[in-house]
């Protein structure tokens, strides 16, 4: 049951062309192009080591690309540092939970939300006012908490929360920066079926107002969620298009999915 | 500056640079492989110098002093690693800074108790006490050439060890990926002990060999430590090649600086470091 929505605008919010990342002689990502449209979820799948996480890192600025370009909301962001890309409207979540473990759940999200109301560090007003009375920031954080379903556990220390809660927190932090483009790296990893179902529902809600790239292994979720599907193997794209098309592609079936795909509904 | 003076300064800068390399190589290896910052590294240099002096006085032979001194200090290094350092590889850099700073104090006092606080000279062995005449009035001491030669030989030996031997391969693997190396059956604890002992050994031999030229005095360790750090920063942590290039560079800048621009000579090396940091914050040769 694929849900192929049409994009809500003419040009993609994020467009990457011929991205390549070499480590010595090895190309972890080789001439990969991907477009992310507002109102669509673009899933990227592939076996371990296919280069999916590296691709995400290239798009978010965590890794500099060897060659290729990335355009975000009409702006060429190739070579930009991660903080600049983030402030331009891109948010990413991590496969390996990357939170502030010693802070409370609420503080994690609040700090993420604070990033949007942060004038220069050298501004003395920033040293004197209380961080916790920032109305705008608190509202932003509340919205993110609400979306991620976290409001019950806000005072717990993040490092001591359950794995599922930490994954929710991971998403909440990304949402608190109010990005237009979301890069989600295995958000369902390690979740039980009930939690995974909530996450899928959340992603369907988010789809309307965001352009989302989803890296995942969970095939059921992929086919419920994705409007476009790209398959990567050994750093290269071997197929990209409508999920139904890709599923039927002989090359993809041979190289990667085989029985899994034809059995998924 | 005429050609002879230039040659003399060039030789001096090479000698100083190679000496710094001996110290920096050990430091950068220990940083790069075990991730430990060791502020007491300069103390090993001082230990070497004092050992050279006391053993040479005791036995009357400089060569014997170096031999025995090297063995003693390597054993001391192994003991220190086993007793203290190996428990700190996983700890915060801050803890390591504090621990090794405390050790500096302890070593200085032990030195004071064992050997006193006076300045001592070490006689250059007769065999090496000649000078090579360069002009009517200028000549170059053979001993300084000997120092450079010793450092070169050890540098070559280190290079061969690291890049051509099995042990070297294991050392490099351990630096690259700890857990994997261990999983492959390599005794990582042994590697660490060897690397630490190597670092200590290089530092003490440097001190021993330098003693006749620099004299033996308290605080000689801290003075050389800072230069050592500068070399490692410029060269890049974990890179022995970087340490060599940086050490020679520092030797050149410092030696010629003192001769050509004495007013700012002390600062030149730091200006060099600042320049490198602006363009390559992780040093010339990233590990």
């Amino acid at each position, binding site marked *: 049951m694929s849900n192929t929505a049409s994009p809500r605008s003419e040009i993609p919010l994020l467009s990457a062309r011929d991205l390549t990342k070499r480590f010595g002689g090895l190309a972890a990502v080789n001439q990969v192009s991907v477009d992310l449209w507002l109102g669509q979820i673009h899933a990227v799948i592939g076996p371990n080591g296919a280069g999916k996480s590296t691709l995400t890192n290239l798009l978010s600025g965590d890794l500099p690309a060897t060659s290729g370009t990335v355009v975000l909301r009409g702006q060429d962001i190739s070579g930009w540092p991660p903080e600049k890309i*983030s402030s331009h409207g891109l948010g990413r979540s991590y496969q390996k939970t990357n*939170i*502030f473990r010693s*802070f409370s759940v609420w503080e994690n999200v609040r700090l*993420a939300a604070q990033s949007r109301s942060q004038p220069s560090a050298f501004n003395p007003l920033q*040293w004197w006012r209380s961080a916790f009375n920032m109305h705008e920031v608190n509202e932003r954080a509340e919205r993110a908490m609400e979306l991620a379903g976290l409001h019950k556990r806000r005072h717990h220390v993040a490092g001591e929360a359950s794995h599922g809660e930490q994954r929710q927190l991971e998403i909440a932090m990304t949402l608190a920066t109010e990005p237009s483009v979301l890069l989600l790296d295995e958000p369902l990893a390690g979740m039980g079926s009930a939690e995974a179902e909530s996450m899928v529902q959340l992603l369907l809600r988010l789809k309307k107002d965001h352009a989302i790239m989803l890296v995942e292994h969970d095939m059921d979720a992929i086919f419920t969620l994705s409007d476009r599907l790209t398959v990567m193997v050994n750093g290269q794209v071997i197929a990209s298009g409508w999920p139904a098309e890709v599923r039927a592609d002989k090359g993809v079936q041979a190289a990667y999915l085989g029985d899994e795909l034809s059995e998924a509904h | 500056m005429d050609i002879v003076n230039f040659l003399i300064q060039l030789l001096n800068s090479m000698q100083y640079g190679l000496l710094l390399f001996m110290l920096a190589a050990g430091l950068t290896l220990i940083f790069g492989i075990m991730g430990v910052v060791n502020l007491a590294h300069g103390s090993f240099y001082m230990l070497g110098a004092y050992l050279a002096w006391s053993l040479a006085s005791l036995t009357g032979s400089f060569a014997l002093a170096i031999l025995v001194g090297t063995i003693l200090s390597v054993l001391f290094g192994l003991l220190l690693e086993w007793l203290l350092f190996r428990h700190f590889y996983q700890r915060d850099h801050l803890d390591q800074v504090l*621990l090794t700073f*405390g050790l500096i104090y302890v070593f200085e006092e032990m030195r004071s108790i064992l050997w006193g606080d006076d300045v001592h000279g070490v006689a250059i062995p007769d065999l090496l006490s000649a000078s090579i005449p360069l002009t009517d009035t200028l000549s170059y001491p053979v001993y300084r050439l000997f120092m450079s030669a010793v450092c070169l030989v050890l540098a070559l030996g280190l290079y061969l060890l690291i890049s051509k031997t099995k042990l070297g391969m294991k050392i490099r693997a351990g630096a690259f990926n700890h857990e994997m190396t261990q999983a492959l059956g390599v005794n990582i604890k042994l590697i660490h002990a060897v690397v630490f002992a190597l670092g200590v050994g290089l530092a003490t031999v440097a001190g021993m060999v330098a003693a006749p030229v620099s004299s033996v005095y308290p605080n000689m360790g801290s003075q050389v430590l800072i230069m050592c750090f500068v070399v490692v920063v410029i060269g890049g942590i974990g890179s022995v090649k970087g340490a060599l290039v940086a050490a020679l560079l520092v030797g050149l800048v410092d030696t010629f600086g003192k001769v050509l621009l004495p007013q700012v000579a002390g600062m030149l090396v730091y200006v060099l470091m600042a320049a490198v940091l602006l363009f390559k914050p992780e040093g010339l040769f990233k590990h």
Partner: protein
Amino acid sequence: MSAPQSHLETLPRSLNVLLALCFLALLLFPFVGTDFYVQMVSRMMILAIFAMSLDLLQGVTGLVSLGHAAYFGVAGYALAFLTPAGEPISLYTSLPLAVAASALLALMIGFLVVRTHGIYFIMVTMAFAQMVFYLFFDNKALGGSDGIYINFKPDAKLFNLENKHVFYYFTIACLLAVYIFLRRLLWSPFGRALAGIRVNEHRMRALGFDTFAHKLCAFTLAGALAGLAGYLWGAQTGYINPELMGFHMSAHAIMMVILGGMGHFAGAIIGAFSFEYVLHVFKDLPEVAGFNLGKHWQLWMGLFIVALVVFAPRGILGLLAKIFKSNEDAP
């Protein structure tokens, strides 16, 4: 407000009460102490300001600087150069100028140094501080190894700093002002961002924070506050020499912060007092069986430091917080 319980940022209420009482004792001390001890406590308070400035860098932001004393010393030298040979200089011109000098130096060095991480950062901060040290040590024009005398305490017009008690209270005022400033900063957006950088700098960047600017600003602020301490030190002792900028002074600052407990600033104050006291005790050790224990105070100091690292990583305040917390419900 849910306060993040990390790194000693908040303390149990009973401990806060104890700290307030200690402050009261500090205020009343000159009425019971002799001149000698009033001066000693003044000096401890100056070192406490120095320690707090480092705590901003180390305890809050997580940057371990082995060269913080450079900014301490530079302000002292600024006062020395500004004070004419025959008369005092105004407090109101010399203090801001000295602090500005330290801040400027911190900004310049910070710009080069803050782009490095981990071990590198530690090494380059030390290297640059040594550079400043040698600049003063090697140049007779800057006083050389002998240092410079400051013949008059700064002229405060409204009160007389030459009076030891007046100087004491002026120092307390500075200590209090710095403490309040830093505590507010800790809970400000800037302070929360610094704490975030300490805990997970990578994520902070991914969230859109300009971590370079934040770290540089913290480095500069810390340098400025160290300058305030250095200025007071110069004013109090009347003598500045390069050792005050040296490696040992920087290391002492680190030890004070660790000993007291990082991240709360009260810990830095406790650490400064305790460290000076311990040093005092070791230097005063008697001779036992012909062996002068006091002369070899460095040995005891070294062993003390090693023991500290091994057994009490969260310092005195950490220990006290644990004790007081177990006597109270969790906040």
